[in-house]
């Protein structure tokens, strides 16, 4: 039995009202001594029993009445179940959409993977379909694939297609599968055209589909939940982050494993990390619907970059997400050393008051950024080789030692960002040398913040080089707050010619705001105004956070490799071209060696990895040499880890409105869409209405008679 307005069933709770009133009345009944009790007791017990029976009957009728009203309003109807619909002997075309995404490898109640149950159900449907029903099989794991040539009556072809269904680390692509089904059925001339979706019906699979317009031209669809609504608790590793653990000693790295609990109860699991021949074990206790992090510290020798790492959980229902592969080359992660040139005990006067949360929002490092905040005196004490980027925030001068260290750091490929401030003077150029993209000629102040005329006197960022990776973020955002920021003071640069230097952004009048210059293998950049509110209000604009993060990522070289942070099966994955010469070879996780040949462009820095269809470590190396090999890790999609059941009544409702929303997907249109009449449906609510009136009449008669 199904309902057109199932939410109205909540009104059935009102059925408790007569019972509650009855119980309250019983409790509040007044005790009254009475002399003529013998007449009240009605020595005739029959009358007493009849009276009690009538009272109960009236109560039952009232309860039934209050149940029947929302029941009738919810418009119940009977619809034949999926099997009986498909098993009709009449000619027809049926597309079996079988979910073979990663979540289907979860174990069902009988210990079998859910996919096996789905395939068994598909076989049963094919067998019961009769010889006049044509079938097609579409796999719903990304990308959606048609496993039969087309709709076919050939049972052997269908069996072959069903046999090819195997679980894999794929995401779900139900929209694609339904589109494929729609295409197939459009070519069918049969009157009966159906889609049957077999799978675990997890919420993530339907999240993009459960809207009527997504199924605009599917004539009839049915959903079969192969786990029969049973909840499946699941733990999954959702991320592994590596960072240098400098405080623990040289060569130490911290491996932080994030474990998510998608179950309804708190769970405890063992976490094992293997890296560079070391194994550490810990325990994670994760509350329901939460993520906990477990951190381990391991030693990683300098020469072991690229080592393969694996984090594992003790097994549960879905083993594919209990393992996370990672590579220890810190690819895609920028370790940033932020040097505070004007610290203050008053928080809002501190130079890093705005920059700190920009790089570490919510006390969690921004994705791909691991910042460390120090004072200027710390600069020489830190091993700069552990960092990818150094930010000098309002640092006015450098000692010769500091300068030498920083020059060595940048020349070795590091990134340096200098921001302006009151410590910076024209004399600073002498101590910075080539570490500034351009020398500082003067410090200019165009307005004072408390001046009423400041609004017309301040400068704003007027020109931006959107071709630059940092500024590309702001392209097409002409009203971005970046362009509305007010600049009160700035460092005027002497933009004499410097090889490779470029201006990324400038104030009105062409005054440089953000400049970049190469230095050795690294880059230096300068923001000519402050990172705090002293010289501008850029730091309180919404553009500030993405601007600073993009700058740091760019200088750290992770901007273009950001995708590597969470390489997922099915993604387009690229890897840096290994040093050396000779043909390239790809070592796949399944042990296969795939020759890649030479990169098409001689100066190509990265090349794509073909067929990333298995989770594990992929290594690209020069043939016959392991030197300079680049390893990346690919994992199964974690969207599949949450096995909570979709809102099936809503899915049913969406599926039962075929063609109702060919019109644009506007919410109003959906709300007003009337369900198409399904002739196989048996309406129950008129009968319920009749029963309702019968109940009303009976109740009234009993009350009047009583």
């Amino acid at each position, binding site marked *: 039995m199904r309902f057109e307005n199932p939410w109205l069933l909540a009104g059935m709770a009102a059925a408790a009202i007569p019972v509650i009133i009855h119980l309250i009345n019983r409790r509040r009944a*007044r005790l*009254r001594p009475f*002399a003529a*009790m*013998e007449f009240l007791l009605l020595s005739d017990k029959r009358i007493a029993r009849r009276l009690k029976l009538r*009272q109960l009957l009236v109560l039952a009728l009232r309860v039934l009445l209050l149940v029947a009203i929302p029941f009738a309003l919810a418009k119940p109807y009977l619809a034949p179940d999926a099997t009986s619909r498909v098993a009709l002997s009449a000619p027809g075309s049926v597309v079996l959409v079988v979910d073979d995404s990663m979540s289907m490898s979860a174990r069902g109640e009988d210990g079998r993977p859910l996919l096996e149950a789905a395939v068994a159900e598909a076989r049963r449907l094919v067998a019961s379909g009769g010889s006049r029903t044509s079938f097609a099989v579409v796999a719903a794991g990304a990308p959606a694939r048609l496993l039969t040539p087309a709709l076919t009556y050939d049972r052997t072809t269908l069996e072959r297609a069903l046999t090819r269904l195997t679980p894999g680390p794929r995401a779900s692509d139900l929209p694609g599968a339904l589109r494929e089904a729609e295409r197939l059925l459009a070519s069918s001339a049969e009157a009966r055209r159906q889609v049957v979706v077999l799978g675990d019906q997890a919420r993530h699979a339907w999240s993009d589909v459960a809207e009527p317009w997504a199924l605009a031209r599917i004539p009839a669809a049915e959903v079969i939940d192969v786990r029969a609504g049973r909840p499946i608790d699941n733990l999954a590793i959702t991320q592994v982050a590596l960072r240098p653990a400098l405080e623990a000693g040289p060569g130490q790295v911290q491996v932080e494993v994030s474990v998510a609990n998608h179950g309804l109860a708190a769970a405890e699991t063992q976490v094992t990390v293997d890296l560079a021949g070391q194994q550490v074990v810990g325990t994670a206790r994760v509350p329901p619907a939460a993520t906990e992090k477990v951190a381990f510290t391991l030693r990683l020798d300098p020469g072991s970059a690229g080592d393969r790492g694996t984090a594992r959980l003790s097994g549960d229902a879905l083993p594919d997400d209990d393992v996370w592969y990672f590579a220890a080359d810190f690819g895609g992660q920028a370790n940033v050393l932020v040097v505070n040139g004007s610290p203050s005990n008053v928080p809002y006067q501190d130079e890093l008051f705005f920059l700190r949360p920009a790089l570490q929002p919510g006390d969690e490092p921004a994705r791909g950024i691991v910042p460390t905040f120090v004072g200027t005196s710390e600069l020489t004490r830190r091993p700069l080789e552990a960092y990818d980027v150094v930010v000098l925030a309002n640092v006015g001068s450098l000692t010769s030692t500091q300068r030498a260290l920083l020059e060595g750091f940048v020349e070795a490929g590091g990134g340096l960002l200098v921001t302006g401030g009151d410590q910076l003077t024209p004399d600073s150029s002498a101590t910075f040398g080539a570490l500034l993209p351009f020398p500082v000629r003067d410090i200019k102040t165009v307005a004072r913040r408390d001046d009423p005329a400041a609004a017309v006197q301040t400068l704003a960022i007027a020109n931006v080089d959107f071709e630059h990776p940092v500024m590309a973020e702001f392209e097409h955002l002409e009203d971005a707050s970046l362009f509305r920021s007010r600049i009160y003071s700035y460092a005027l640069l002497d933009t004499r010619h410097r090889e490779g230097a470029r201006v990324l952004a400038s104030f009105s009048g062409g005054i440089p705001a953000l400049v970049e210059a190469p230095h050795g293998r690294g880059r230096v950049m300068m923001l000519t105004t402050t990172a705090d509110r002293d010289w501008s209000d850029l730091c309180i604009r919404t553009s500030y956070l993405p601007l600073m993060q993009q700058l740091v990522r760019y200088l750290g070289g992770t901007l273009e490799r950001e995708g590597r942070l969470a390489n997922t099966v099915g993604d387009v994955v690229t890897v840096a071209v290994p040093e050396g010469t000779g043909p390239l070879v790809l070592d796949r996780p399944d042990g296969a060696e795939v020759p890649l040949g030479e990169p098409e462009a001689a100066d190509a820095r990265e090349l794509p990895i073909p067929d990333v269809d298995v989770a594990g470590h992929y290594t690209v190396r020069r043939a016959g040499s392991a030197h300079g090999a680049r390893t990346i890790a690919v994992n199964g999609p974690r969207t599949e880890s949450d096995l909570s059941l979709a809102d099936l009544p809503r899915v049913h409702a969406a599926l039962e409105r075929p063609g109702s929303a060919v019109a644009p997907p506007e919410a109003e249109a959906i709300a007003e869409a009337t369900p198409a009449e399904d002739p196989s449906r048996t309406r129950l609510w008129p009968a319920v209405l009749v029963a309702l009136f019968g109940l009303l009449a009976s109740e009234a008669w009993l009350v009047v008679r009583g």
Partner: protein
Amino acid sequence: MSAGAFHSQLLDPRALAQLAGLQARARKVVDGLLQGIHKSPHHGSSIEFSEHKEYSPGDEIRHIDWKAFGRLDKYYVKRFEQESNLTAWFVVDRSASMAYGRAQEGGGALTKFEYASVLAVSLAHLLLQQQDAVGLVTFGDDDPALLPPRGRTSHLPHMCKVLEETKVRGGTSIETGLTAILERARKRGFVYVLSDFFGETEAAFKAMRQLVGRGHQVTAFQVLDGDELSFPFGEMTLFEGMESKQRLLVEPRLVRDAYMKRLKAHLQQVRAQCLRAQVAYALADTREAPGRLLLKYLTGHDVSSPGASLDPDGARDGAREAR
């Protein structure tokens, strides 16, 4: 305040309930009552002169007032208040069911026992005034308490004290009270039975028939509360028997008709039994003024007849008006 209104107020059970002491209540009832009666209905030989009557043949010559003949030259016969020398027994039910009444909840009216006591003492007051002896028996389901009959007016306080100190409890056994009178009453007299007649009544009427057979004039006052006659309850109520301690949780509106039907049958049965036993019967509704009830009784109205209050519907209307 007019005299009529004054007496009307005094006769009202609610006003009576304001008075402390049974004797005070009875005196007020009797005061009001005598205004309605004016003189004793009994005339006969007595030492106390009452009035003159013109002689007619058949009158005793010894009663001719010769002094009046000397003055008026006409024969007048002296008439005297009768000294009846009768004995009246009051048999009052003190079972637990007689404790029912509004007074129980502080409503201001009388319980059935208090009402019966006012009736008994008021009648005793009248009887003692005409030199009759009055005795009292209170009964429950144990041994009856007995106050021997005396003809002195000083006997009335004793009777009041006994009634006031009576503890109303236990079951009903009218026959034990009547048997006590059968054993003691050698002279013919009056027997007033005041009870709600709940419970078994067969043995009681057998005893009453025996009393009637010995020449006693028996009157049964069936004392019932207005609630019992009209069953006016509305909300869900847990009723508890006063003698049986049985309980019943019920919505009164659902059982009212059945209750009234059975009550009416019971009243008719009691009245029929009274008629068969040649016992005068009066239904005493505690909402009615005791003086008015006695007046009707003494003037011969509303006794041994169904009357308006015998009808449950009529009683219900009365209850509504009273509220």
